[in-house]
């Protein structure tokens, strides 16, 4: 039984100065279901609130209209007031007499008073259709999943673990470390990448709160914030890591060699291998594509003609602990998590589309990442930079920027952000190592925007690198050397530079499988398959999918400090989430009346938060069902639903229609 009380606030003279409060009180008292109408100097003051609480008790009010300022200002205040009087806090509606009336119609007291009365009538009609709402409490699993073991994921995992929560870190490669592990030195400080990274990798391996799953990938994600259920595929490594001690005999003795992925194919590794000496975990995996025993098995299985290759099995024979397990299969683990951080990073742009640059054709045209491996003291060449074509030290080295970046036609539209700086780094280091080297850089713009970056770029120039503004139109081979032809747009003339090596500053691209992962996580991604954050400025590590956070370069090009910072930021968000006993959901969310749902499922397609699932009822009908933990209450589904099955609590069709109708009563 609706017994509505209306409390009209003077707000000092803010409202009372323009609106005839007496008339408003009188009119409100006449409205249907209103059993009490009163005015108040300041509704929001403690005495004002006390009057409201008393009136609720005295008049047995079941619903309350506060006619005062904007609900954006004080709705929460008054919800608490009515709750203190024993009413459900959602049985409150505000009429905005100040911002929307007295302050903007101070020139017409009569009109303002009329409007004030109508605003109250609308609120009364609406509040009569309010329902008691109850925030729901959902328990949560205080365990985080970090997808991607690069520097960003490592940082996030460590920060969460250090906050006292369990973390599972999933990495699809056999080791964590990511791209940063491949780098030689880092700009602008030139400290050794692995020197600063490997201790963190070890921390991950040793942290009691972190479970590390390498050679593993996320397959399926169900559930929602606080209650995700994730299926993770642990790929068969053919080595029982529980037994393996990482002694290294196997990979030293393995007779089969294959190009090393970690070294960008510049070096070799054995078929049973760890990607690099400091790999974490320091335990090998068998590359079944190259393993001799597996080649033998395949030969037999496929019933091929001729003599089968030998069954090598050297590793098995030599392993002191019997860790080789030929029977090992891919395994699916299903685990519960409360939050997920995506830190899947990037892959370097493949420059083959730039046919005129001859990457893949001219051996001395290499990518920036290949240069990193070449320069690295622990790399295949021991840090000795030589021309792949003849093993000689190069004298003239040309760098080309924006390969795959800022290029709508063949690459990506965005700037990859790090290329300018790593080229500067290469130029500086080359000059340091080989004083007779001459570096040339073809550039579009030099972007050196972070702390100490501009200085670093200057240092490269001062080291003797010649920066030429312009694009390169082609590279040809001539007398065992390369000739780089391009335009110097500052001089406005074509230039040709003979070079011993050309380094392509390839940009960053989404890592493979990003779109599939985003779909599994119900997170949006853009045309470049980069993850979209909930808000580019204010919510940079959150996504529109609650409980899923993003860190590092999976969102867009980022350098190491930014990746680390976003990893920490995401971890902080997770820690904040986990600091709650329960997740409290806002009750002003959508709902679907299953009896009225016709099952067109358009709502599931438009929901920006993927908060609507489908459900098959006992009568065989498929209907939409709202996941209240994900719904943000925008109401798009309500306007989309022709059936009138979807409704939005707090802004129901009935409530809004009542507001409209009340204007003509």
């Amino acid at each position: 039984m609706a017994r509505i009380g209306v409390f009209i606030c003077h707000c000092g003279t803010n409202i009372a100065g323009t609106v005839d409060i007496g008339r408003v009180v009188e009119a409100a008292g006449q409205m249907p279901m209103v059993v009490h109408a009163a005015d108040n100097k300041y509704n929001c003051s403690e005495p004002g609130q006390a009057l409201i609480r008393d009136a609720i008790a005295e008049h047995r009010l079941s619903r309350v209209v506060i006619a005062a300022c904007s609900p954006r200002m004080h709705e929460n205040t008054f919800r608490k007031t009515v709750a203190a009087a024993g009413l459900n806090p959602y049985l409150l509606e505000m009429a905005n007499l100040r911002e929307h009336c007295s302050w903007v119609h101070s020139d017409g007291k009569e009109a303002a008073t009329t409007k004030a009365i109508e605003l109250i009538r609308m609120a009364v009609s609406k509040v009569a259709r309010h329902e008691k709402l109850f925030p729901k409490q959902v328990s949560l699993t205080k365990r985080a999943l970090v997808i991607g073991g690069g520097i960003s994921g490592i940082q996030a995992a460590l920060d969460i673990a250090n906050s006292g929560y369990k973390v599972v870190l999933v990495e699809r490669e056999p080791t964590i470390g990511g791209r940063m592990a491949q780098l030689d030195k880092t700009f602008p400080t030139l400290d050794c990448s692995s020197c600063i990274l490997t201790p963190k990798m070890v921390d991950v391996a040793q942290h009691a709160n972190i479970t590390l799953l390498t050679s593993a990938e996320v397959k399926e994600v169900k559930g929602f914030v606080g209650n995700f259920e994730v299926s993770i595929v642990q790929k068969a490594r053919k080595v029982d890591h529980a037994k393996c001690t990482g002694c290294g005999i196997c990979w030293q003795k393995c007779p089969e060699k294959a190009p090393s992925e970690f070294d960008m194919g510049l070096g070799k590794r054995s078929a049973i291998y760890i990607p690099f000496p400091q790999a974490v975990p320091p335990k090998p995996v068998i590359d079944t594509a190259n393993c001799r025993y597996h080649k033998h098995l395949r030969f037999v299985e496929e019933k091929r003609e001729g003599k089968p290759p030998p069954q090598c099995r050297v590793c098995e024979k030599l392993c002191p602990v019997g860790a080789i397990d030929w029977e090992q299969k891919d395994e699916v683990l299903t685990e519960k998590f409360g939050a997920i951080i995506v830190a899947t990073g990037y892959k370097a742009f493949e420059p083959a589309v730039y046919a005129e640059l001859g990457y893949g054709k001219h051996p001395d045209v290499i990518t920036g990442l290949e240069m990193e491996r070449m320069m690295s003291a622990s790399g295949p060449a021991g840090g000795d930079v030589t021309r792949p074509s003849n093993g000689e030290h190069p004298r003239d080295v040309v760098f080309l920027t924006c390969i795959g970046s800022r290029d709508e036609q063949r690459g990506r539209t965005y700037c990859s952000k790090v290329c300018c700086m790593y080229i500067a780094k290469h130029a500086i280091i080359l000059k340091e190592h080989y004083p007779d080297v001459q570096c040339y850089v073809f550039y579009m713009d030099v972007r050196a925007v972070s702390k100490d970056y501009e200085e670093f770029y200057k240092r490269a120039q001062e080291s003797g690198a010649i920066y030429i503004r312009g694009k390169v139109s082609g590279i040809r081979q001539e007398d065992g050397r390369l000739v780089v032809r391009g335009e110097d747009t500052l001089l406005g003339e074509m230039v040709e530079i003979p070079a011993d090596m050309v380094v392509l500053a390839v940009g960053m691209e989404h890592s493979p499988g990003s779109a599939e992962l985003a779909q599994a996580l119900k997170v949006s991604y853009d045309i470049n398959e980069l993850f979209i954050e909930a808000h580019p400025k204010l919510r940079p590590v959150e996504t529109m999918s609650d409980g899923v956070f993003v860190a590092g370069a999976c969102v867009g090009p980022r350098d190491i400090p930014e990746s680390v910072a976003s990893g920490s930021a995401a971890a902080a968000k997770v820690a904040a989430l986990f600091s709650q006993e329960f997740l409290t959901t806002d009750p002003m969310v959508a709902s679907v009346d299953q009896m009225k749902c016709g099952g067109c499922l358009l709502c599931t397609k438009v929901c920006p938060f993927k908060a609507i699932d489908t459900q098959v009822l006992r009568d065989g009908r498929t209907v939409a069902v709202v996941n209240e933990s994900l719904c943000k209450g925008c109401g798009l589904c309500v306007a989309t639903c022709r059936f009138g099955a979807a409704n939005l609590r707090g802004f129901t069709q009935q409530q809004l229609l009542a507001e409209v109708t009340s204007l003509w009563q």
Partner: protein
Amino acid sequence: MAIDFEPRIVGFLCNWCSYAGADMAGTARICYPSNIRVIRVPCSARIDPLLVVKAFQLGADGVLVAGCHPGDCHYTEGNYYSRRRFALLYPFLEYLGIEKGRLRLEWVSASEGRKFSHVVSSFTEGLVSLGPREKVPAEGALP
């Protein structure tokens, strides 16, 4: 046309931008005609065209729908959907004889108090010059 015609406008404002923009007009004391009656909705995407049609049936002279600027939606994309919905409803109502100028879709951000006031003023003026809507009688005499 009667000079003292006071059009009745129903305004559906999204909570995060346009309602806040209207609040801003208040805070800045920017006066505008008092003809609008505001209904707060979380997002312009919440507004079922039925509500607009119903407002016109009941006798509204004008209906204003206001939301965040495209790209600024609090829910990231709601207003793109409302833009489509009302882009289609707009010429349809005109086709049914509800003149252009009686339904308006506007993007008003939380900082655009002045714009909100301007929108209401110009909308009201436009409706005054259009005059009262010749209402379809709800009663309806027998044929």
